[in-house]
């Protein structure tokens, strides 16, 4: 098998030039799809017969929660890639995505809490999902704090990669333990009633907003990575050419 593409991927220059045309289109497609999904969900999707209109929060809550988890998965994987193959792109990815993931986790927490008020009657219950998202948020904040306090670039790269990998290995254990703890402490009184199947007109806007948010975040992540690459590689010739000729 030819692994050349894999090693090429590690070259910041190659990555910069390849990813450059993708960021803006991904961002725009993401925005459009997200807006379509949200407006559809807000105004046109039918009302839920149990939760009334408060279920419309799902069109924000679910995509955001999915992204919060996917971003952490991606962080852990790229941390592993960095530790094993020393690929230079991986730390820029971690640095770019960690704040996005933190914002997503925060949005999931806030939307979950606000959704909880009409559904459960309180802003916060120590529900397994809420608690594990809270932990996820703390893990993101830990990565960001470590990144910001280490000034030596090489050390910061390594340290953040180690923390992401440890986090990735621990995340399933944390999730499992929180679920276990939750069933121990409270009965199944406070669960969102899961219906077997959503009707298509409820489910389709969710698909739009989820795909939209994924694209939007991908676009943002590419932009952040490109910025980080330019800042880190400012001594190399191609960066100078790039900045003087095209701007960003």
């Amino acid at each position, binding site marked *: 098998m030819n692994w050349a593409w894999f090693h090429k991927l590690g070259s910041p220059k190659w990555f910069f030039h390849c990813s450059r045309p993708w960021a803006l289109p991904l961002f725009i497609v993401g925005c459009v799809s997200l807006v379509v999904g949200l407006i559809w969900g807000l105004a046109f999707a039918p009302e839920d017969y149990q939760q009334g209109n408060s279920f419309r929060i799902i069109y924000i809550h679910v995509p955001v929660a999915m992204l919060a988890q996917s971003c952490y998965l991606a962080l852990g994987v790229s941390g592993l890639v960095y*530790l094993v193959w020393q690929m230079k792109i991986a730390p820029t990815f971690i640095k770019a995505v960690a704040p996005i993931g933190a914002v997503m986790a925060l949005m999931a927490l806030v939307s979950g809490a606000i959704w909880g008020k009409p559904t459960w009657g309180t802003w916060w219950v120590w529900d397994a999902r809420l608690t594990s998202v809270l*932990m996820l948020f*703390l*893990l993101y*904040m*830990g990565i960001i*704090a*470590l990144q910001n*306090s*280490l000034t*030596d670039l*090489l*050390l910061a*790269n*390594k*340290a953040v990669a*180690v*923390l992401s*990998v*440890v*986090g990735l*290995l*621990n995340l399933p*254990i*944390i999730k*499992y*333990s*929180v679920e*276990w*703890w939750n069933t*121990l402490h409270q009965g199944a009184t406070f669960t969102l009633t899961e219906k077997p199947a959503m009707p298509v007109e409820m489910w389709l806007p969710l698909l739009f907003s989820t795909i939209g948010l994924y694209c939007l975040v991908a676009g943002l992540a590419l932009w952040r990575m490109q910025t980080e690459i330019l800042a880190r590689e400012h001594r190399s010739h191609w960066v100078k050419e790039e900045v003087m000729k095209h701007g960003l």
Partner: protein
Amino acid sequence: MTYLSFIKAEVLVLWRRKQNVFNALLFFLMVVILFPLGVNPSAEFLAPAADGIVWCATLLAVLMATESMFKEDYADGSLEQLIISGLSLPLLMLLKTTAQWLVVLLPLLLMMPLLAEMLYLPDGSFWVLIATLVIGSPSLFLIGAIGAALTVSLKQGAILVMLLILPFYLPVIIFATSAVRAAQLGLPYLGLLAILLAIFLLSLVIAPFMIAIAIKASTN
């Protein structure tokens, strides 16, 4: 240098820095005392909460003890010597963490009968609490050492270590206190101890390597 001489030196150093261990134990005691004073001194509150209080205090004390475990070795250059010694760095780190664990945990266990009395710990769950401490605390030390190694180059790393590491302690405290509570209710608790053991084994496999990577990156 051999592994044996490393262990000897490590024990000697720990003995000379016994004040650090002493401080961590005092801190542990202080945190335990905060609960009766700050929340409620009655037996109705303390008896069901005793295991949780002991475990919360243990988490914090372990973090206090591990946070500085590489600091002096980093400052005086002995960490670099370990790296170039030709011995396996992960194994050395494991030995170091084990020494730290023994030095902190043994006095902590000796304090337990007294604390169990002070917190009105229900009869019959004392030995389960001891068992959870013995099985669960190695994971705390191993994970805490990762945090200590990541922040060894920072002057003020203590709060950062807490922020980084406490989320990883969550499963340990959940399963440990659940085991004690299961024992109090007369339910089977061996399965929970087995989960604690599994977390310990997982940390044992991963943590030494992560500590070694972090130490190597920090000393460059």
